[in-house]
């Protein structure tokens, strides 16, 4: 498998009225062709911001850390440093949509309400595939068919509000894929949908990914969804990846106390009488990021004198997996 995206040491800070905050700190991950990386974490853990940085979609107050590297291998094999693309450049516009496509959580809000589905699809198709209007329309109808929208020839002229929630997200997938991206970033695409629709959309995305051979970054807060769709997983907490590895391995044998907490928090049909077990405490505000290990304020296994003082290094106990936790270092174990 070839690496199509390699992110190293990504740090993102924002200038705010309360000073500089750094919601993403030293994040590294890779995406391989045809595979899915799941980014998991609570709201505010920096999942979305990290992926928005790839396409320079962050507001003007955002700054990337000096050591941040984001190398993307384009469809033609060219290596592109995503952080260095000039604003408004043709190359950036080609990357946006044509190389990397993005699907968002709210299908209703991601369509403009004043243009038809077809209008917005044809715009992307004409931009990235160089087709004429008539051909673009045919292409759009074909794409709507592909994502399982019945009567696509009529739907293409409808407005977003005329579609149901699930249909809208299917149409959004069609819109994003119609530009022909090699890498798909899906930012909680099923969170706003009913559970039954959720499963359909997940199936659809997995099938399309296989068929088109795309790489995918799937952002979610739900480890259950990760189990269904991701090959690899990276668990984020307060802007840092605390654990990563093959999805099966991480879910079966979580190393980090935070990952363990997230898995315990999933309600189970086998234990209906048990109370739910949420991860204790609240996620701290990014303006008050705890020193040392960011998770120590909520960790039940924190080692006093170590975890709140020093940031843990990334270690690898199981091959292919990595974890940032003092419990998994020789130093930490002796301190405990």
């Amino acid at each position, binding site marked *: 498998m070839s690496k199509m995206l390699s992110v190293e040491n990504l740090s993102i800070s924002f200038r705010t009225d309360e000073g500089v905050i750094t919601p993403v700190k030293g994040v590294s991950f890779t995406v391989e062709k045809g595979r899915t990386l799941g980014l998991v974490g609570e709201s505010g853990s920096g999942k979305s911001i990290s992926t928005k940085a790839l396409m320079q979609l962050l507001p003007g107050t955002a700054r990337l850390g000096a050591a941040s590297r984001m190398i993307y291998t384009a469809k033609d094999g060219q290596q592109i440093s995503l952080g260095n693309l000039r604003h408004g450049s043709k190359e950036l516009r080609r990357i946006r949509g044509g190389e990397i496509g993005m699907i*968002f959580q709210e299908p209703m*809000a991601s369509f403009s309400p004043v243009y038809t589905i077809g209008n917005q699809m044809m715009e992307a198709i004409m931009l990235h595939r160089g087709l004429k209007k008539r051909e673009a329309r045919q292409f759009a109808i074909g794409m709507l068919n592909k994502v399982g929208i019945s009567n696509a020839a009529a739907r293409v002229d409808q407005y977003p509000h005329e579609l149901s929630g699930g249909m809208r997200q299917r149409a959004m997938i069609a819109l994003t894929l119609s530009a022909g991206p090699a890498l798909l970033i899906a930012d909680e695409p099923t969170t706003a949908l009913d559970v039954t629709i959720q499963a359909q959309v997940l199936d659809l995305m997995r099938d399309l990914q296989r068929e088109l051979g795309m790489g995918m970054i799937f952002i979610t807060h739900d480890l259950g969804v990760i189990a269904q769709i991701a090959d690899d997983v990276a668990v984020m907490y307060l802007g840092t990846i605390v654990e990563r590895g093959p999805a099966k391995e991480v879910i079966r044998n979580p190393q980090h106390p935070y990952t363990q907490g997230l898995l315990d928090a999933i309600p189970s049909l086998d234990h209906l009488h048990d109370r739910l077990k949420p991860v204790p405490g609240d996620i701290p505000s990014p303006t008050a990021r705890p020193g040392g290990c960011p998770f120590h304020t909520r960790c039940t296994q924190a080692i006093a004198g170590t975890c709140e003082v020093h940031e843990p290094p990334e270690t690898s106990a199981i091959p292919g997996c990595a974890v940032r936790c003092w419990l998994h270092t020789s130093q930490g174990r002796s301190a405990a």
Partner: protein
Amino acid sequence: MLRFTLERFAGMVVTMLLVSVMVFLIMEIPPGDYADRYAFRKYSGTGVNVTEADIEAIRRDLGLDQPMLLRYFDWIGGIVLRGDFGQAFAFETSVAKVIGDKVWLTAGILFATLLLTYLVSIPVGIYAAVRRGSAVDYGLTVFSYLGLALPNFLLALVMLYFANRWFGADIGGLFSDQYRDAPWSLAKAWDMAKHLWLSAVVLAWSAVAYQIQTVRATMSDELNKLSVTAARARGVPELKLLVKYPARLAINPVVSTIGFDVNRIFSELPIVAVVLGLTELGELLLKAYLDLDMNVAGAILLLLTFAIVFMNFLSDLLLGWLDPRIKLGV
């Protein structure tokens, strides 16, 4: 769109009818009528003893003794069927002759002011929202407060002074001397345009200041919409993106208040007109009211309200085109 247009058109016609009734009632409200005023004018100081019967005779001559309902239908019927606004009593000629040219001049000023307001405030407001928090944005905010705080007539005086100093424009009026009484021609129209811009700038000043802030606020909201980020993530070029996605919705409140702007400009017109030496309808309206010359007052009020209702109709159509959800009724 056709159905939507027809519906709105029907609505406009009904509104105009109701408005004409109201205008007629407003004409009836002041105590006394032109018959009293005429008798007073003709005989005061002459020593002639005027009796009720004399006034009644005048009233009959003028047709003012008819019942109200009849006079309304007579009045509105004349306007709708023959374009005849009736007799301007105080001027002893037809209303059409009295208001004639002034209607076109007033309409010209109104239209020029509206056009200038939107041509300036919409792009500038969009620019301010895109460059939010920059020096230019703050500068525009300061200008807006200045624009709203400065009285129009003061601005008119200052503008007159500088227009005369720098551009050698004649002071006041809508025409140069040689064209004032000349028949309409291309040269006369051009001469009017040269005078018109000053009035348009003065009248548009505060509206521009106000609408810049409106567009800036709605555009700032629209820029944060997910659909804009989504379009950007599809690689739509920035300028095309701004016009197609956020700007189209951001000008919504400006378009929906076109009718209000017409009314506001007309209300501000008389004061500015005094300073700039314009002959327009507002001043005439006041005079007609003082004279109890109700046909003139009614014609002006009716034309103004029709202009507002018509502009509202246009703004409805524009809104329906800008945001198809409106005409689909969702």
